[in-house]
């Protein structure tokens, strides 16, 4: 029934728009749903990328923030919209890979139920701790946590957040899922209490913590990527620091409802690719500590594979995490 209505609505929109949908997409502004409040990391990346994509497409991409339920409200709206190419969404690791294991009642299927466009950028994850924590490096820290899990307090930015997701994976790998987890509403307050030493450690995106690490108000044990980051060249990778299993990156990528016209998909992929090759856009993204996606990840198939890979990686730890 719903499909029929959507179809009718799409048909109506099509007839009113002069039947110009297939030829010359796009003929009207495109809505990009950002499933988080304005100003967050995803919102910023979406606005930077959309700004340039609009130029290529010749139509404005309008950002619509639809926050709620760890981003799943907005993604639900986007992937259940009419698949005409005029509604797309900028999601992230949480909404596309972690959500099925985090939210049991999820109303969309990121693997089979949507049309991926491509990855917009990746953000390395760091394990950071208060500056006066005894353990000098990751090995010592891991040993201390394993020996005495009850002595540690982990801070995270709320269930479903990137810091919660990545730290749950970290705790899963350590085999200590029951560390005292202190939930904060967002990264800011969590970081504040880490700087003032109220809590012991957290995992978060490099863009949030890099300046604090550089100013020595907190210390970084490792970066959970394959390579060191140019933003923090002194921080070893998890592989170098002795925890090679912990490899995770927070990323942002674009997807839309399943069944979008091929022309729309192609044009969006092309526009995204051009945006990521544009010097100005590239610089803005790199300034954020973003890792630009590989050519493979910029394609629908490559992005879908990434979603699947990280979902497989996260699901066991997230399902075992103490919740619900």
């Amino acid at each position, binding site marked *: 029934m719903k499909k029929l209505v959507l179809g009718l609505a799409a048909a109506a929109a099509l007839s009113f728009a002069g039947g110009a949908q297939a030829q010359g997409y796009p003929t009207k502004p495109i809505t990009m749903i950002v499933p988080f409040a*304005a*100003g967050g990391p995803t919102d*910023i990346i979406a606005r930077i990328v959309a700004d340039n994509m609009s130029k290529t497409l010749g139509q404005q991409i309008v950002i619509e923030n639809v926050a709620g339920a760890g981003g799943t409200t907005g993604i639900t709206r986007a992937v259940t919209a009419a698949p005409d190419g005029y509604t797309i969404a900028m999601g992230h690791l949480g909404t596309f890979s972690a959500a099925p294991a985090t939210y049991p009642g999820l109303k969309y299927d990121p693997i089979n139920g949507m049309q991926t466009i491509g990855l917009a950028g990746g953000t390395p994850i760091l394990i950071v701790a208060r500056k006066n924590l005894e353990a000098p490096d990751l090995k010592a820290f891991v040993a201390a946590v394993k020996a005495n899990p009850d002595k540690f307090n982990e801070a995270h930015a709320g269930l479903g957040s990137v810091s919660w997701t990545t730290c749950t994976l970290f705790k899963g790998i350590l085999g200590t899922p029951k560390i005292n987890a202190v939930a904060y509403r967002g990264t800011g307050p969590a970081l504040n209490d880490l700087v003032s030493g*109220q809590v012991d450690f957290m995992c978060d995106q490099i*863009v949030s913590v890099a300046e604090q690490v550089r100013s020595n108000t907190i210390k970084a044990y490792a970066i959970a990527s394959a390579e060191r980051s140019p933003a923090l060249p002194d921080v070893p990778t998890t592989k170098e620091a002795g925890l090679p299993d912990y490899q995770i990156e927070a990323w942002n990528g674009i997807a839309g409802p399943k069944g979008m016209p091929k022309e729309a998909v192609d044009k969006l992929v092309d526009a995204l690719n051009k945006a990521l090759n544009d010097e100005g856009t590239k610089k803005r993204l790199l300034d954020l500590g973003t890792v630009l996606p590989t050519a493979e990840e910029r394609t629908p198939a490559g992005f879908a594979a990434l979603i699947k890979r990280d979902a497989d990686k996260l699901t066991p730890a997230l399902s075992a995490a103490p919740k*619900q």
Partner: protein
Amino acid sequence: METFAHLSLGFGVALTFKNIALCFAGCLIGTLIGVLPGVGPIATISILLPITFGLDPTGALIMLAGIYYGAQYGGSTTAILVNIPGEATAVVTTLDGHQMAKQGRAGIALGTAAIGSFFAGCVATVIIAALGAPLTKLALLFGPAEYFSLMVMGLCFAVVLARGSILKAFCMIMLGLLLSTVGTDLETGQERLTFGVASLMDGIDFSVLAMGVFGFAEVLRNLENPEARDVVKAKIGRLLPGWDDLKQSAAPVLRGTFIGGILGILPGNGAVLGPFASYTVEKKIAKDPSRFGKGAIEGVAGPESANNAGAQTAFIPLLTLGIPPNAVMALMVGAMTIHGIIPGPQVMTRNPELFWGMVASMWVGNLMLLIINLPLVGVWVKLLQVPYRLMFPAILIFCCIGIYSVNNQPLDVAFTALFGLFGYLLIKLGFEPAPMLLGFVLGKLMEEKLRQALIISRGSFMTFVERPISAGLLVVAVLVLVIALLPSIAKKRDEVFTE
């Protein structure tokens, strides 16, 4: 002396023609969106972010900061004229500000708010310049336990806010706390009282609740008694505050600036408490507290100054620590990062022209807001003369579009209507919505901080008493409560005797 050198560097940056123009543009847009209910600085700043791509970082931030404190100014206009608090900090202004408007003293209320805010803004600018770095340590002294105690203290203020029965005020505070628990639990992800409605999953939005119980309910109340609403347009007093008004507001402005300035530095949006605390103080030290809630000018001057001082000192944790204390500041972090400046403890030393330019522009911005707003007072007051039969549909459409734009969720508008009905019911039952809103605003933070503190202390309530700052705040809370309760307990005893 160093401060002067820094400030002259700052003014050198802020007083270039381009930056003055950007500051003016920001203040103007900010005032506009502040006046429009629902459309807050968050939505506007995010929309304007891409426009600032072409600017240099300092200019962009000067403009965005202008939007932020411009919105604080504009918000009080709506609170005074139509009794709609756009943000939590404007709730207190509705109490006496709107009463003043009803008495034909809207111009004086608006003028007092503008002048008080200007003074507070100037003082806050100096505080940021001179004491920003040392005051940062204050923010770091506040852990979850201290925060929880601060919230408890704030709730005790709400008792003083009450105009009528204290018992009913308690009811409203608890109801506000109960409403604040709606939504997905932060720690476990379980849904509480959401009834499966998607737009309730992140809790009830402040603007939905505030616009319902204040804006919509007020419309319903006015529709019911046409006499009350006609008073507003019947007499228009003088447009700007006179010397007597200014003399009367001088001390409240000073106290409000101090209180708001201190609370603004605290992370986790301590600035919200500023106006409430200021109102409490003014009402408690007033010779005749019964004037409050009926159009006391101190009840506008103090809280408005506290609001603006807090809005500005809230920049301290952002600029000196790189940690945003509230959602708008988080957006400023976003704006800075987009421009290649990652906020952190070193912004002050690494980007001095940005830091001091922004500080200096705050003073420039406050001056501009005064220049923009004082002439507007006349316009606003004229607007009150629009017949109410046309005014309330206009209020409704502004509210509806504003609420819709918060999350782009039509259901939010329907919820606001529902809360309008709820607010109307509260009016009929003799309950006041202001304590409920305070309970609602503090409730979320309070639960969060309580749970954090108990996890860190491994379940020991002693943590609230053992930590000196926390214990001190709790003592203040008890004192406020006792002072508020004593008269009414005595009265009740008298009543028993007279019967």
